[in-house]
């Protein structure tokens, strides 16, 4: 398989409105060569619009698109040299898998033998060399998306664009194809922009994850940083689950349920705060008969759920707020609904917001 060095991509101050809705509101993003950036965000945050502007399928009202140091803002889609995989199945129904993969090569005037060879290589790359003569209606959704990936890669584009390509697939195929995409991306070193609303998918494949909100990137960082050190409450609450626990800030520390927790930058430095604590940073200890029932950290278990290696417990605090704790399955098994427990917060760095 042909390995190439990726190009840099720069989206600069993009703006795009649809009537009164600002899909992109001064959005900027830089991708390093061969990097895979995943844009993540809720519906309507502008992630797909950003990708479509980069593909040339949407015109930006303001801003510039620069690829490999060249301004392509006004270059039409068919001249941008980008491979794209769409959310909807996009194989041409009147062509076989092989013909679909050859389509872009045919447009580039490649001779038949070279075209067949390249298409064969790319179908092999996605593990579908035996399905070359099948039509779209003879393939499963996962196979169709893999052919679409092979078709996008066959033209050896400068940039690969993935617009929620896995969202129509079932969970198992999704994970397999997600890993396959990442393996291929690393293998050929192509600069890739991947858009998804699935945070697990984003965290699993990205070099960097960009969390978008209201047409802008709220935070862009490595997956572990996004998860462990969110810079805004939106990012903290959008990625994974979070508990909002009352606390008191004092400098770069806060006291939550009697435990001193280090605060992340951007948190208030004094006064009453809500501390955003991950479920895995909450521990539950069954209350013994001699415990003081009036302790601030006491709660009642209202639900438990088994999730394989770990489980989740919902507990209600005295002020009626719910807290979610993620525990080992064996610990969850020891708890029952209605049981009184004591909450202990782990002193992991957390973000806080003013009350």
């Amino acid at each position, binding site marked *: 398989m042909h390995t190439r060095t990726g190009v840099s991509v720069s989206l600069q101050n993009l703006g795009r409105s649809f009537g009164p809705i600002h899909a992109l509101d001064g959005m900027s993003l830089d991708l390093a060569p061969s990097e895979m950036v995943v844009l993540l965000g809720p519906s309507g945050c502008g992630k797909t619009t950003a990708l479509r502007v980069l*593909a*040339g*399928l949407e015109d930006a009202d303001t801003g510039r698109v620069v690829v490999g140091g060249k301004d392509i803002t006004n270059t*039409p*889609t*068919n*001249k*941008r*040299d*980008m*491979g*794209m995989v*769409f959310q*909807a*199945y*996009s194989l*041409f*129904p*009147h062509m076989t898998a092989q013909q679909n993969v050859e*389509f*872009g090569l045919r*447009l*580039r005037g490649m001779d038949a033998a070279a075209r067949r060879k390249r298409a064969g290589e790319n179908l092999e790359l996605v593990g579908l060399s035996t399905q070359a003569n099948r*039509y779209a209606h003879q393939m499963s959704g996962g196979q169709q998306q893999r052919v*679409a990936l092979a*078709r*996008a890669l066959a*033209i050896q584009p400068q940039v690969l*664009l993935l617009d929620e390509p896995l969202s129509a697939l079932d969970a198992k195929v999704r994970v397999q194809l997600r890993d396959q995409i990442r393996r291929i991306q690393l293998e050929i070193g192509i600069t890739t922009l991947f858009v998804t609303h699935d945070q697990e998918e984003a965290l699993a494949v990205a070099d960097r994850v960009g969390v978008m909100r209201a047409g802008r990137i709220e935070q862009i960082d490595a997956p572990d940083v996004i998860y462990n050190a969110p810079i805004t409450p939106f990012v903290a609450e959008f990625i994974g689950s979070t508990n909002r626990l009352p606390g008191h800030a004092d400098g770069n520390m806060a006291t939550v349920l009697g435990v001193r927790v280090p605060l992340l930058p951007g948190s208030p430095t004094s006064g009453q705060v809500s501390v955003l604590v991950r479920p895995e940073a909450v521990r539950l200890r069954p209350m013994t008969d001699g415990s003081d029932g009036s302790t601030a950290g006491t709660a009642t278990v209202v639900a438990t759920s088994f999730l394989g290696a770990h489980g989740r417990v919902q507990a209600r605090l005295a002020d009626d707020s719910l807290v979610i704790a993620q525990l080992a399955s064996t610990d969850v098994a020891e708890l029952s609904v209605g049981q009184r427990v004591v909450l202990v917060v782990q002193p992991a760095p957390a973000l806080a917001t003013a009350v």
Partner: protein
Amino acid sequence: MAGVDVAGTAAAVDTPASTAGGPKRRRLRHTVRRKQAAFRVIVVTVLMAFFLIPLISLLDFSTRLRNNSRSGAAWSKVISIASATDASSQKVWQGLVNSFILVGLTVAIMLVLLVPTMTWIRLRLPRLRRVMEFVCLLPLTIPAIVLVVGLAPIYRQIASLLSTSPIWLCFAYAVLVLPFAYRALDAGLEAIDVKTMAEAARSLGSSWVGVIWRIVLPNIRTAVTSACFISLALVLGEYTVASLLSRTNLQTAIFIVSQDDPRFADALALVAMAIGFLLLFALSFFGSGRKARKV
């Protein structure tokens, strides 16, 4: 075990019941099937009679002389029409040629006008779909005779600028076939994800013309065939516009010939119908051929 017992009991109960009621039920089923078959035969017979009696009458009239004797003169004339030198045969031959040219031009105009426009509206201007539909269906609401009143001044201009050739009727016919062709093509475009396919083709380097030619058209093949069917049938049978604008096509030629030689005109009408049928059959074969190969 309980499940097995229940099933066993049910089978035991069922067996005598089915033995006792079997022949009765079979007789009933047989009677119902016979009645259904008879009903089908009656429906087909009535329909065949409805369609065939006029055609048989036409054939009968074309071969019957006034003294009730038979003659194949009209049919001989039809067979030798291309080489005949008499005025009526030449008129009909000219009308036939004109109609075929008009079919080709009308279908070409209709496809060139509708396919890219409808595709573009679906891709870029979806809000205009209703407007497009309204405009395309409009000719359906205007009687041909009213349409001619509007077309007459235009055709006067065409006659002075270009010629009085009947082939310019193709513009009027393109308008006449719009509603039917639009419906057929719209159904075809509705059945495919034009937007995604067009975007995929564009991202792979295709021009807009390439998108329509290589992607859209092959995927709406059946719809295009249907639109062609309708256009062909309409143009081959069109009389009003051609007659009122004093142009010669097959139907006006047959009408003129029928004034002097009604048997010849009847034979021609039958032949025209057969040609139309054969063309439609050929088109339907063309439209479904690829799909059949694919599966």
